[in-house]
């Protein structure tokens, strides 16, 4: 767990944003939406695992079982 994850999420976000813009310009709005959705899902997977780790850590620290 380090800064790389932040860059990765930001990178995916920027690429998705550019791709959606290009697709939108070419008149493929639907595909643009699709790309955005996929991007959000991919990032969500990363964030969800991170959140899971975080919750586990908190639970371990405060003995909440």
């Amino acid at each position, binding site marked *: 767990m380090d800064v790389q994850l932040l860059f990765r999420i930001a990178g995916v976000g920027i*690429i998705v944003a550019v791709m959606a813009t290009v697709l939108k*310009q070419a008149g493929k709005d639907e595909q643009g939406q699709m790309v955005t959705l996929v991007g959000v899902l991919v990032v969500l997977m990363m964030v969800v695992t991170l959140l899971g780790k975080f919750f586990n850590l908190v639970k371990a620290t405060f003995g909440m079982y």
Partner: protein
Amino acid sequence: MTLKLVGAALTVLAPSWIGFQIAARYGRRPVELRGFQNGLAVLVTEVEYGATPMPDALRSAARAAGPVAGAILADAARRLEAGGGITPGEALSDALAEHRGSVCLTPADEEILAALFPVLGASDRHDQVRHLRLALDRLAAAEAEAADERRRYERMYRYVGVLSGLALVLILM
């Protein structure tokens, strides 16, 4: 570390290459449609003024039609001359089927040519010219559409290819 870099480079390159391929198809389609138009225009002249028999007419059409359409028309002429009881339409249809892998025409474009198959060479001059001109008009419309699509999609597919490569690397990293 080096291995990782090489892997990342490959991961970026593969989708980029696919994107460029798709973009290239959009670039080639108008050219091919134009080639067919040139070929058919020569065919019209041959039929209307020369009353040239089909294999010869197809061959001189092939010379005017540029590489891709030319290859198909020349192949049709060859098939027709080889005989075996096939009509010019069937020869052209077979030639088109044989080259399908190397042309970038959409099914709709092929449909325009397919409309010629049953009539090619099968009626009088007037009728032939009418059918050929109709096909020419439809090809011109298809070319305009293809040029429009090229303008819109050629660059897009390149971008999308490269960007999805980058995204893949980021996600897998």
